[in-house]
């Protein structure tokens, strides 16, 4: 169920995600070290174009990558195909985009 286009899209989003995952983990570990409060974290992220771009890009890459992965699993293990498979792919992508981008907007937009 993977043609060249979907395959490349999944590999390229993985390439984007690799450094972002490391950055995300580093930030998580750093943020909890000295007992940063929610207010302190939001103070740093709100209004920051950098954090908006970092997590905005992360969410887009994850949504595309995960939707294609779920598509393959659903086809091979649940024998889903045709319109149902497309619906699952696009639905998963849209749901992840909505959840992820909502969080990004709340945390980074003042």
């Amino acid at each position, binding site marked *: 169920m993977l043609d*060249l286009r979907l395959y490349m899209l999944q590999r390229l989003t993985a390439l984007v995600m690799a450094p972002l995952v490391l950055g995300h983990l580093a930030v998580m570990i750093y943020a909890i070290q000295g007992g940063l409060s929610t207010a302190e974290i939001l103070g740093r992220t709100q209004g920051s174009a950098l954090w908006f771009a970092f997590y905005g890009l992360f969410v887009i890459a994850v949504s595309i990558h995960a939707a294609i992965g779920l598509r393959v699993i659903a086809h*091979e293990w649940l024998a889903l195909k045709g319109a149902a498979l497309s619906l699952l792919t696009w639905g998963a992508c849209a749901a992840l985009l909505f959840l992820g981008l909502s969080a990004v907007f709340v945390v980074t937009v003042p």
Partner: protein
Amino acid sequence: MTAAQETLDVTVHRGTTRGARYDSFQVPAHASQTVLDVVSWIQQFADPTLSYRFACRVGMCGSCAMMVNGTPRWTCRTHIKKVAPDGKLLIEPLRNLPVIKDLAADMDPFFDKWTAAEAQHHPSQTRHDPIEPIDPTDATRAEADLGVECINCAICYAACDTVAGNPDYLGPAALQRAWTLLNDSRDDGRQSILDAVSGTGGCHNCHSMGSCAQYCPNDLNPMRAIAGLKRETAKSFFKGKRNA
């Protein structure tokens, strides 16, 4: 099989995809006995209605492959003592293919995919052209040589879990032949091969689980060939050919 054991307990798949049953036979054990010997004994001495397929009996023709105790094997070159030391055998038709009858799998889907992968020679010259010298030490030729010993037995196809889950997947044998031709300087079908292996059933579905390489009786490595196809189609993608 111990020295004292004189018979083998053999269970054989009978019937078709639509209706199957299993028959049991007691088959005399012999030294250096192959699985094909056992199947032939049943057909000749116990049940002449048993259907199965074989031709060369020496591992060249690729027609006698079956599932032996759940593993795809070329039955003519598989010794009983190696696969069934306890003398118990379960023999079934190749996995991932429809069954014509008993142990004879329908090979049509396998060869249809062979064609769909453009795994056929695309001549670059005519019979009137001089014979093109081939340098066996050339790296591209060496890569092509890795796959030429394929005997089309479909053991890799039966072993492949991606084929099992994704019936459209072209499978290891067809993709390996496509890769072999892609590396053959005498083949003129580069673009049509790259297009053929880039569709929804193409090489990109391979999860690199490696059952093809694990079970190939000729020790070929279709997984390596498929990785090569992924590489070439990806390069082609970056050159702006979205359909490879």
